């Protein structure tokens, strides 16, 4: 049986069963059902490893032709090549771990079946996205994950704010999708097809002017901006923390937000041919990385810090793409998935342990109470801050190295962003786990507890991966060529060999990286562990600006949302009230009037009736005579 079909089928089945029969199934098995569905896909994907390693072409499967308009054929077809296999492994692997975690996390919830159904649907859509062999399937998956994101963010729908957050995520996604759609239209009209295998080689051969390619690339990137939370469409991601923590871990750290990066890597030839587009990507990535890191410095909600951290790290990935280091970006996607999922799940464990308190100012001293969570979280923090030899160190260093070769200025900015990363992550760590417990009276310290094995096992697995993940793509000074870059090389149509710097520069860069980590660590330790922070202190000045997210949300509200609402009101008054309501409610009086007029004919006067009768007969006969 077709492996691609099976990989897609398991999560879909999980969704259908949990979705349709969920309420009738016992609560204990719905979670396992969902987990096993995703895990089965993972096993299947692993089983295809050797096949794909041997044959870089991969497996293609054309399910059926969706639509055929003149020369444009739209197929529901999939391809399992190295890139999509890699993504599938990440999605299903980390997905299974998070599903396992969710069994325990959601066991108090009233509707676990719905949750797992949505999660499975999400996995299915994400797989559609990465396994698709043309832009159409990409778009289906794109929209599907957007939908699931909405459903899952607003999972606890009784809270209106959560609903608003979900809506905000969806709407911002949609704005980006417009760019994606326009890009797709341009591709379809200029290249007559949406298949990767037809469009990309055609581009590589020189069909299409540079401006056309730039236009398409920028439009596709706009889609990526929406989906991967880049400036200016990033404010939905912090708000999306309203959803359950596993959702944040899966969707907003490891998978959905990486769809934008996947898109750029998949259309690598396109971006290769358009330096202007690459510059756009670079600029946006830099801005995002910097702004998000800065905001994260002063957030007090543990999940919000992680959210802004995600946005910032995504900025790093796009910077890598912007300088043409595609594999590096994908490498960072992978390691980031490891440690960010770890961090989120750890945060979930913490929140669970302190009975749903999310403000870090009320935490502290949790190290003794939640050892497993503590140590895994430490590993995650070290990884993201670039502790040497952990996965994050290698991936981030590679990005910085590539950026350095491109431009020293950009390197400087990115290095600063990395420094900030270290600072805010350790701030988070120290505030949460060290120092005195600053909890409120409602939660006594004794009640804080460690989570059960279903939640700690994924933490351990992810911690291990975060440590060892660097092996996936060791830099050139250790091994001849990193595993990942070698593995992915055949998938690139246009490739430029990366220039490797001499050892001196490399040592310089490595020491910079270590320095960044150390400075961040020491500063945070000093500021937050030794000095401590109390919740009642009011933040002033710059800190206040940062805490309020640079007031970007308010700005958007003022500039975008309010005018749209006003426009909506105007149009409502104009069209709805006037035209629709007016017409609908005008029917009644009009009919009454017409009826009233016609009623006068029935005056009971016989002669009247006779006269009408005669005239009517005359007219009928006349018409019959003349026209028939």
């Amino acid at each position, binding site marked *: 049986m077709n492996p691609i079909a099976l990989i897609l089928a398991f999560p879909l089945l999980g969704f259908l069963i949990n979705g349709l029969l969920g309420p009738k199934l016992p609560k204990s098995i719905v979670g396992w059902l969902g987990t096993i569905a995703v895990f089965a896909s993972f096993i299947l994907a692993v089983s295809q490893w050797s096949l794909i390693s041997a044959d870089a072409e991969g497996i293609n499967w054309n399910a059926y032709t969706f639509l055929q308009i003149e020369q444009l054929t739209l197929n529901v077809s999939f391809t399992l090549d190295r890139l999509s296999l890699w993504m599938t492994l990440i999605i299903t692997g980390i997905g299974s771990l998070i599903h396992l975690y969710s069994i325990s996390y959601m066991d108090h919830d009233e509707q676990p079946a719905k949750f797992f159904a949505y999660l499975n649907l999400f996995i299915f859509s994400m797989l559609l996205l990465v396994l698709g062999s043309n832009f159409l399937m990409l778009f289906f998956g794109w929209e599907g994950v957007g939908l699931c994101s909405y459903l899952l963010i607003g999972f606890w729908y009784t809270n209106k704010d959560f609903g608003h957050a979900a809506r905000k995520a969806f709407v911002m996604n949609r704005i980006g999708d417009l760019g994606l759609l326009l890009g797709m239209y341009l591709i379809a009209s200029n290249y007559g097809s949406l298949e990767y295998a037809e469009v990309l080689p055609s581009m590589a051969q020189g069909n299409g002017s540079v401006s056309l390619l730039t236009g398409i690339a920028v439009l596709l990137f706009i889609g990526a901006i929406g989906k991967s939370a880049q400036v200016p469409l990033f404010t939905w991601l912090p708000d999306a923390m309203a959803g359950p923590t596993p959702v944040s871990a899966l969707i907003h750290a490891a998978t959905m937000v990486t769809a934008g990066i996947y898109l750029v890597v998949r259309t690598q030839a396109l971006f290769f041919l358009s330096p202007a587009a690459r510059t756009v990507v670079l600029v946006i990535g830099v801005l995002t990385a910097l702004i998000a890191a800065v905001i994260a410095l002063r957030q007090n909600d543990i999940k919000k810090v992680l959210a802004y951290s995600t946005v910032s790290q995504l900025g790093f990935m796009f910077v890598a793409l912007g300088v043409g280091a595609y594999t590096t970006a994908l490498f960072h996607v992978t390691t980031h998935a490891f440690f960010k999922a770890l961090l989120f799940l750890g945060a979930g464990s913490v929140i669970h342990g302190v009975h749903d308190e999310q403000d870090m100012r009320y935490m502290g001293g949790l190290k003794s109470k939640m050892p497993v969570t503590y140590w895994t979280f430490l590993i995650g923090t070290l990884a993201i801050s670039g502790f040497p030899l952990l996965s994050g160190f290698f991936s981030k260093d590679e990005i910085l190295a590539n950026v350095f070769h491109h431009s020293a200025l950009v390197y400087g900015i990115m290095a600063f962003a990395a420094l900030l990363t270290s600072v805010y992550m350790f701030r988070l760590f120290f505030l949460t786990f060290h120092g005195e417990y600053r909890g409120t009276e409602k939660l006594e310290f004794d009640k804080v507890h460690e989570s059960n094995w279903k939640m700690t096992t994924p933490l351990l697995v992810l911690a291990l991966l975060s440590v060892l993940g660097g092996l996936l793509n060791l830099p050139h000074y250790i091994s001849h060529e990193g595993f990942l870059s070698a593995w992915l090389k055949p998938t690139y149509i246009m490739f430029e060999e990366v220039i490797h710097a001499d050892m001196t520069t490399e040592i310089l860069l490595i020491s910079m990286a270590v320095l960044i980590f150390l400075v961040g660590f020491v500063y945070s330790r000093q500021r937050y562990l030794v000095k401590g922070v109390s919740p009642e202190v009011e933040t002033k000045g710059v800190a206040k600006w940062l805490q309020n997210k640079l007031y970007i949300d308010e700005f958007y509200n003022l500039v975008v949302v309010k005018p749209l609402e006003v426009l909506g009101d105007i149009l409502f008054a104009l069209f709805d009230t006037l035209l629709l309501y007016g017409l609908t409610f005008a029917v009644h009086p009009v009919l009454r009037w017409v009826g009233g007029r016609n009623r006068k004919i029935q005056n009971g006067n016989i002669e009247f009736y006779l*006269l009408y009768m*005669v005239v009517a007969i005359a007219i009928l006969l006349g018409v019959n*005579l003349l026209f028939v």
Partner: protein
Amino acid sequence: MGALSNLPIPFLVLSFLTILSALYVVTSKNPVHSVLALIFTFFTISAHYVLLNAQFLAIVNLMVYAGAIMVLFLFVLMLLNLNKESEPIKSNLWGVSAAIAAGLLLVVVTAAFQSSGIAVMKSHTEGIGLVKNLGRVLMTEYLVPFELSGILFISAMVGAVLLGKRSPQEDVEPQGDKL
């Protein structure tokens, strides 16, 4: 219309009389005059029947229509004591509109007939309208309608009698126009 001069004199005269008396029926103020004029109209129409080789019909017309029905009308007229009563005259507008309506129908109907292109010449077949012929047709082809007309008459008679019966409690001088 064919040239009037071509028409035979009897037909012309008869038609003229018919139309004239019909007009008088319609316009006369005295109802008794209307009835008498109508009787005269029936006479002229009977003469037309004779011209049309429908002799039996001519006599029956006279006997039934002029003799029975019109007498009935006269009776009722006398019963209700409607003499040269001041019958409320309708407004001129009404008369005009009625005339227009009737005229409209006239025009349309004649146009309809005109366009149908019938121009059959008189064919004289002996004895169409004689009793013998009519009787034979009536008793063979039209037997069922003949019997049914008997039933119709019965019902009409019963209905008329029932309607005309005075109820015992009826006032001698009922109120004006309150029903």
